[in-house]
């Protein structure tokens, strides 16, 4: 997928489909090309979110925009940032939306801003065939509709992020190709790219993605 300057990439999808992992990967990649901002717009789930990566973002010069109370013990869904200036000050803006329609409602608040972006906005719907809640193209299409309605916006494309977490292999991903085509047919949306494992040989329809959202006992491999 070509990502032009001043693009805004919004990642939506059912919860657990891997939006955050993809958002962090995209931010790290785009930061090599220009001024990148990542916006954690998840007001639903307090765990495993873009805001967990604050140190990594600051080390890579990524402007990280988080809800005020993210990663505190306050379960208060407040978005207190000026999204318009974040977008206008960045070459690339990635928006990590909360899961399912419940997580997508905050996007609706910015409806007019997003509509004013025109073609600069890519609103992507991320799906993972290996999630029990996404086992049929009909189910994926149903959730997509719910999310579009919560956002008051229409998705512009799909991301096939089918994976089994730590057990993802190239063949696990390859097995999802047929399913992805069905989803594309059902929704009438193009597959913008398929996430593949790191270092895999790829063409322009593939995006190598590292598993960055990990469990606490996986993250430390150096003990000395």
């Amino acid at each position, binding site marked *: 997928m070509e990502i032009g300057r001043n693009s805004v990439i919004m990642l939506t999808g059912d919860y657990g489909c891997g939006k955050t992992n993809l958002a962090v990967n995209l931010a790290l990649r785009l930061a090599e090309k220009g001024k990148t901002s990542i916006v954690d717009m998840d007001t639903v789930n307090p765990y495993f979110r873009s805001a967990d990566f604050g140190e990594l973002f600051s080390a890579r010069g990524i402007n990280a925009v988080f809800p005020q109370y993210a990663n505190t*013990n306050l379960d208060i869904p407040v978005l207190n940032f000026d999204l318009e200036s974040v977008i206008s000050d960045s070459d690339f803006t990635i928006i990590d939306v909360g899961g399912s329609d419940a997580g997508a409602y905050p996007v609706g608040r910015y409806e007019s801003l997003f509509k004013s972006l025109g073609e600069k906005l890519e609103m992507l719907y991320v799906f993972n065939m*290996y999630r*029990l809640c996404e086992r049929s193209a009909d189910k994926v299409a149903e959730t997509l509709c719910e999310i579009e309605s919560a956002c008051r916006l229409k998705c512009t494309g799909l991301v096939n992020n089918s994976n089994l977490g730590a057990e993802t292999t190239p063949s696990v991903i390859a097995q999802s190709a047929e399913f992805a085509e069905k989803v594309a047919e059902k929704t009438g949306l193009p597959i913008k790219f398929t996430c593949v494992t790191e270092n895999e040989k790829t063409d322009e329809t593939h995006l190598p993605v590292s598993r960055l959202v990990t469990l606490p006992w996986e993250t430390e491999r150096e003990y000395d």
Partner: protein
Amino acid sequence: MEKVLMKGNEALAEAAMRAGCKCFFGYPITPQTEISAYLSKNMAKRGGVFLQAESEVAAINMVLGAASAGVRAMTSSSSPGISLKSEGVSYIAASDLPCVIVNVQRGGPGLGGIQPSQSDYFQATKALGHGDFKMIVYAPASVQETIDMTYLAFDSADKFRTPVMILSDGLLGQMMEPVVFPDVDVKIPDKPWACCGHENKRSHNIINSLFLQPDVLEKSVNERFERYEIIERTCKMAETDFCEDAEIVVAAFGASARVAKSAVNAARAKGIKAGLFRPQTLVPFPVEQLNKACEKAKCVLSVEMNKGQMVEDLRLALGCRLPVEFFGRHGGIIPSVKEVLGQIEQIHERIK
């Protein structure tokens, strides 16, 4: 059987429905919310009832009602919400009713925090409610085990006519792992005691926890404790790793056992004879399995996400014959592998 990627909370909810749970009553609280959310979307589609009660107190009493009618019923909450349910749990135990209670623990006391914790060990194992009663407590340590133990919880509850708790925590509930749902034929036993309509074919069944005569109350408690003895004898479960020659046995349950396991592996890589003891049932506590795991041990280290709770059961189970040390973090902070390894190394220096 195919692999799917599930969050601990939704896996538990899905497993409950597959295990024949037909009634869920709950009240929202972080970090257990996905259980309710998942069941609110799916329970009705599968012929069950999801009801968001007006409070935790109402929810547990609805469970009492559904269980009285012989239906597999469940409620879930997180720490402060479980405290509110305690009176109802005692009534359920006293009425000899089966049900499943899920605690996706967060930090405490009080409102505490929404991050993971294991600070309800005492509450779960010693006194979730007033009076003389016990409750089987399962402590899963992975998303797969959460599924397997959900089936087991419903079966044990029916078998022993007792409330059963699944003690999860915020991390286990929120994390994702690939899992397989077991292909089992769920058999729900007959419940001739249930209040589900006598159709003029038998006398009324009565579910009751109030006894007017002291000797009748004593008799009913004694009968219940006879069942607890069977539970003691038959339900204990524990996982051990590298314990055959372990000089240091690291004991941990739930999510902290995952950290402990990585630390034990790292210690072994450094030539330290460390082992892991992980109780899968906290009630009944696997006393024999612990003593066997500690045959060669010189020291036991309890790793918990609290200020030291299971450490007391370890000392009791070992009859205080071994030193039992403690390492824990609190407030939603998960002990790191490095920290636990550091503790193991310190003990190793002292005992060699």
